[in-house]
């Protein structure tokens, strides 16, 4: 028993500056896995609500308003509804493959988070092949899509699956080229060797004093742009959602799915969105680094920036309280008002906890990473509200004839400029 406590405590030693996986501490690795899993589930629920509300406000509607104050409980109600629905397996479907396909999508999406660095030591593990692992595992989700489409034994899902596999395989190439040009930038140090490790990539950005999006302007920006387009295509989201285009294919590869298994596809899609956004954040936007870590590095700025997480939550709480004051004063709305007030109070409590110095020092890396990823999630919703859907030949044209040559050009130019910099 004593040994066990010592084992658990050995990781909390401030001298340990590595991830639990790299330190070989099973207990904390398990705790981190659970935390990431919990955080992702909450994030998917929040995304569901936010997507509906933001899309609604973009179209000058109100969105969900009835279930809970401002529809806050709507995702939970939807999840319950999906769990209670009948789980259909169509006649003639290949039942094992049909049963197994959604799990592949979800597993591939969640496995990626093994190497995502939320902070210099806040990752489950740090692999030598981090980014390669991420790209590889996230590309496995296409297998789930293809299996789902084929096993349904129906025309729309099959066409959706074929479209989706062609699209994902094509855009993976452009994505890989953009990633390689970012990895090349990590080798611009004294030793001349780069790294594939996710934590190493962010450390390289810190050492070189700029995010890779601004490196060799505009080369880093173009590479980032290629990745930002390819990642939308990779996750089958609007405007590249041809695999589930409802006007052409009803719902694409998951037409025949219902209930729990449909919700697994939904979970997988949103987790994959967060996963590719975290790749983009890690490679180009400085990962967990706060804005201007080198320029404004006096202790005053450090303390000032450490207040930002708490202040953000207090700001959200203030919005809640403002809306509590705006609620109709009719007795019918009493429970809704109280619920909104309680939600605001919870947010304010979290904000106040984040002001405690011990907590804020440990949490601010995670906060900055999450904030950047959240920005990407907003972009995804914005795209969906703005862009019309591509036609399939246009999609292939964009992938193979625009993004691929552009990516190759950026790669060659990055290598050339980097060589010049090393020479001088």
């Amino acid at each position: 028993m004593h040994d066990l406590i010592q084992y658990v405590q050995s990781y909390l030693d401030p001298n340990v500056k590595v991830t639990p996986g790299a330190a070989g501490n099973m207990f904390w690795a398990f705790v981190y896995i659970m935390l990431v899993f919990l955080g992702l589930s909450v994030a998917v629920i929040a995304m569901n609500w936010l997507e509906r509300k933001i899309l609604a406000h973009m179209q000058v509607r109100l969105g969900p308003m009835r279930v809970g104050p401002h529809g806050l409980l709507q995702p939970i109600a939807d999840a319950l509804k999906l769990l209670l629905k009948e789980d259909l397996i169509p006649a003639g479907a290949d039942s094992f493959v049909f049963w197994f396909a959604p799990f592949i999508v979800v597993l591939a999406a969640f496995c990626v988070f093994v190497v995502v660095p939320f902070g210099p030591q806040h990752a489950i593990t740090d692999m030598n092949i981090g980014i390669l692992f991420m790209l590889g595992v996230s590309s496995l989700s296409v297998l789930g899509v293809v299996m789902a489409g084929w096993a349904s034994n129906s025309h729309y899902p099959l066409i959706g699956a074929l479209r989706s596999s062609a699209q994902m395989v094509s855009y993976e190439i452009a994505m890989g080229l953009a990633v390689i040009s970012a990895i090349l930038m990590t080798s611009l140090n004294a030793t001349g060797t780069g790294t594939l490790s996710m934590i190493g990539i962010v450390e390289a950005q810190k050492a070189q004093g700029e995010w890779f999006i601004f490196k060799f302007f505009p080369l880093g920006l173009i590479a980032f742009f290629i990745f930002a387009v390819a990642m939308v295509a990779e996750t089958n989201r609007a405007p590249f959602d041809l695999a589930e285009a409802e006007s052409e294919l009803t719902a694409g590869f998951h037409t025949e799915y219902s209930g729990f298994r449909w919700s697994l596809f939904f979970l997988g899609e949103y987790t994959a969105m967060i996963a590719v956004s975290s790749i983009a954040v890690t490679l180009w936007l400085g990962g967990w680094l706060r804005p201007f870590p080198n320029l404004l590095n006096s202790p005053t700025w450090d303390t000032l920036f450490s207040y930002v997480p708490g202040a953000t939550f207090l700001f959200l709480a203030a919005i809640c309280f403002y809306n509590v004051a705006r609620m109709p004063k009719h007795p019918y709305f009493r429970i809704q008002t109280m619920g909104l007030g309680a939600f605001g109070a919870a947010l304010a409590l979290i904000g106040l906890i984040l002001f405690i110095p011990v907590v804020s020092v440990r949490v601010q890396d995670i906060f900055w990473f999450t904030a950047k990823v959240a920005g990407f999630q907003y972009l995804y919703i914005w795209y969906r509200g703005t862009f019309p859907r591509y036609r399939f030949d246009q999609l292939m044209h964009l992938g193979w004839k625009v993004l691929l040559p552009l990516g190759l050009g950026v790669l060659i130019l990055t290598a050339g400029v980097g060589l010049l910099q090393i020479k001088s």
Partner: protein
Amino acid sequence: MTPVATPFFFYLLAATMLIGGILVITCKNAVHSALALIVTLLAQANIYLMLYAPFVAGVQIILYAGGIMVLFLFVIMLVNIDRAMKERQFNSQWWVGIIAATALGGLFIAVYTKGKSIFPERIPSIAEGENTQRVATLLYGQYMFAFEIASLLLLVAIIGAVVMAKKRI
């Protein structure tokens, strides 16, 4: 970090690979075969990790499981396999194949039982942290020409595949 419970993971992964391999060559449905092959390939990627070859493991996942097998599944969906499923699965010379394979297996067993002492017992350890960097140094240094020839091979393969699969050239 050093690997833990090596025998357990080795036998687990080996069993997965062998069952997957058997399913690949016995399944009636080509899609089921492809899925079994994917399981085999992923288990093999884990075996590579156990052998301190993380870069090859990553390449195995991204190229084999994510690239080649998707191509296989794509083609299986393009061709109509319903007829092939109703036909006889094994050809008429299947017993010749089995005998040849058994002979080959006997050869393997003979070689490995005779040559057991050749393989050193103690395995020298390689630092895992530098694997990718060292592979890159070798690949772009000593094996430069082989690497270029491989890229030429891929170019030829792309052109060949396009010529074969296109209806009218």
